[in-house]
């Protein structure tokens, strides 16, 4: 019965991703054009719309419909697994795990395959867009250096760093005292360290990036807060995993992590999906 919760979260994520983000990609392409050269976009609005729908792929009808199709296929497969049809087709020999595991694996595989396609189209579109939209001849920049401390208050940074310190120390303590239940604890402990490191690098890199409307983050401060939020979120997720390492198989940490992450991504996508529309409503009008 509880597999319906798993199915609902994964289905929501699939639906939101493939039915909403197809529109979002088109809006993002216009954001990118404006971000590259606002004057050019203002002077060539109609031409930009033609390019968006005909040349920049992400705005084309076939791209939107291919996203819808992938969404429909993904939803059908997830539903088939949930109601037991898929198991009969594949036979249980290929999947010895329980239904939630089959759902999780199928959802991950479908999402990864779809994302590879999606990002390939984004890359091609970005290249075409860079060719079509010239950079402005007059460019302006500040001579004031930007640092993380200029965007996030000291107390917030210190609290985040303290949380990271306590969390990573907890992994070391559990490992040193041998409180873990599975033998490959130390291998898995690389996860929190790697993710924390990556997020810290991204936080510092984001400060140096040019302020951009792309990805719906026109305010760099919002971007830095988002990365710090992700850092805190990652600590909480890995703390949950550490709890699972200590109590052993009685606590289904993988399932909880996947569901929580998916539910968070659904919320994040919903927020992001409506930001570009709010930013440039006059430009956003998919055919």
């Amino acid at each position, binding site marked *: 019965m509880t597999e319906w919760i798993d199915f609902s979260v994964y289905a929501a994520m699939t639906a939101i991703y493939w039915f909403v983000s197809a529109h979002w990609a088109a809006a993002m392409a216009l954001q990118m054009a404006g971000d590259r050269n606002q004057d050019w976009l203002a002077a060539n609005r109609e031409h930009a719309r033609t390019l968006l729908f005909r040349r920049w792929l992400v705005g084309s009808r076939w791209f939107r419909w291919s996203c819808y199709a992938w969404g429909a296929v993904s939803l059908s497969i997830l539903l088939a697994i949930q109601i037991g049809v898929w198991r009969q087709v594949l036979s249980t020999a290929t999947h010895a795990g329980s239904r939630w595991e089959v759902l999780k694996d199928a959802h991950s595989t479908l999402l990864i395959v779809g994302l590879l396609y999606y990002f390939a189209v984004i890359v091609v579109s970005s290249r075409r867009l860079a060719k079509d939209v010239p950079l402005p001849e*007059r460019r302006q920049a500040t001579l004031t250096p930007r640092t993380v401390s200029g965007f996030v208050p000291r107390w917030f940074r210190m609290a985040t760093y303290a949380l990271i310190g306590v969390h990573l120390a907890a992994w070391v303590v559990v490992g040193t005292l041998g409180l873990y239940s599975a033998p490959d604890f130390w291998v898995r402990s690389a996860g929190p360290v790697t993710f924390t490191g990556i997020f810290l690098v991204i936080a510092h890199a984001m400060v140096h990036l040019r302020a951009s409307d792309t990805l719906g983050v026109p305010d760099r401060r919002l971007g830095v807060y988002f990365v710090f939020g992700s850092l805190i979120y990652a600590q909480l997720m890995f703390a949950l995993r550490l709890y699972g390492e200590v109590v052993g198989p009685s606590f289904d940490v993988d399932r909880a992590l996947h569901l929580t992450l998916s539910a968070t991504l659904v919320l994040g996508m919903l927020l992001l999906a409506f930001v570009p529309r709010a930013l440039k409503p006059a430009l956003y009008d998919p055919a």
Partner: protein
Amino acid sequence: MDIVVHTNAPEPVYEQIVRQIHDAVKSGKLQPDAPLPTVRQLAGDLRLNRNTVARAYKLLEDQGVILTAGRKGTFVRFEAAREVAKVKTGRAERLMRRLIKTLVVEGMSRREITDIFNSALSLETRKG
């Protein structure tokens, strides 16, 4: 304080950056020990190749206007204003010497050159 570059101007972009930092130092907009953005930040904001900004910073460093202190960042040197003045004086001197050489080759005497210079200078001063 902002910096503006024109990519279609006859003056190379790195020289535009150097000139504007000189002007900012001279006018006091950039005070001694003031931090400057990283090469990555400035290149990203201006949508330029990093090498262009790095070249400008290298030139400013060679001129003694700025100081790059590793990971701490890049700063305006305490003696930057003096160095900028020196650079400007040096450039003016080079221009003058080139002009004088040309005039000497054309057979002008020291007195003639001095007279022409004084007359041109007073004309420009009156205009200016």
